[in-house]
């Protein structure tokens, strides 16, 4: 039996990353949060695109998780 889950995608602005190692630690840490399916962090665009399960995460909780790591994060756009 497969459960149908509607996934959401959100793009969050991330300030304060300066190198590849910052990008990597964000991808690893946020990528291991429950409900996060996929994460792509761009250093050039200073943002993170995250595909997640809305029953376990919200754009706000993800943004908080990034802030918790010591980076500034802002909600920019959400699309389903």
């Amino acid at each position, binding site marked *: 039996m497969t459960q149908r889950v509607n996934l959401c995608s959100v793009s969050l602005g991330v300030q*304060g990353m*300066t190198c590849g*190692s*910052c990008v990597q*630690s964000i991808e690893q840490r946020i990528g291991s949060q429950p409900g996060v399916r996929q994460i792509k962090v761009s250093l050039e665009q200073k943002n993170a695109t995250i595909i997640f399960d809305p029953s376990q995460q919200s754009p706000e909780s993800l943004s908080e998780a990034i802030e918790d*790591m010591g980076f*500034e994060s802002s909600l920019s756009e959400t699309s389903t």
Partner: protein
Amino acid sequence: MTKHEFEVAMTCEGCSGAVTRILNKVEGVTFEIDLPKKLVWIESEKDVEFLQKTLEKCGKEVKYNGTK
């Protein structure tokens, strides 16, 4: 106040900036960061375990070097 020395795997100003912002959110903590040496000195009454957990939030490897 006890001064604790931690080794944090910081590689750039972004990393040390993240550590700075994390520690700024914690009350009752004064700290110094030496990026080239990858060292963070924290003066606080809080226990080492708490400080280590806080530093680990930035997603980097943290090693406790003892008190200074």
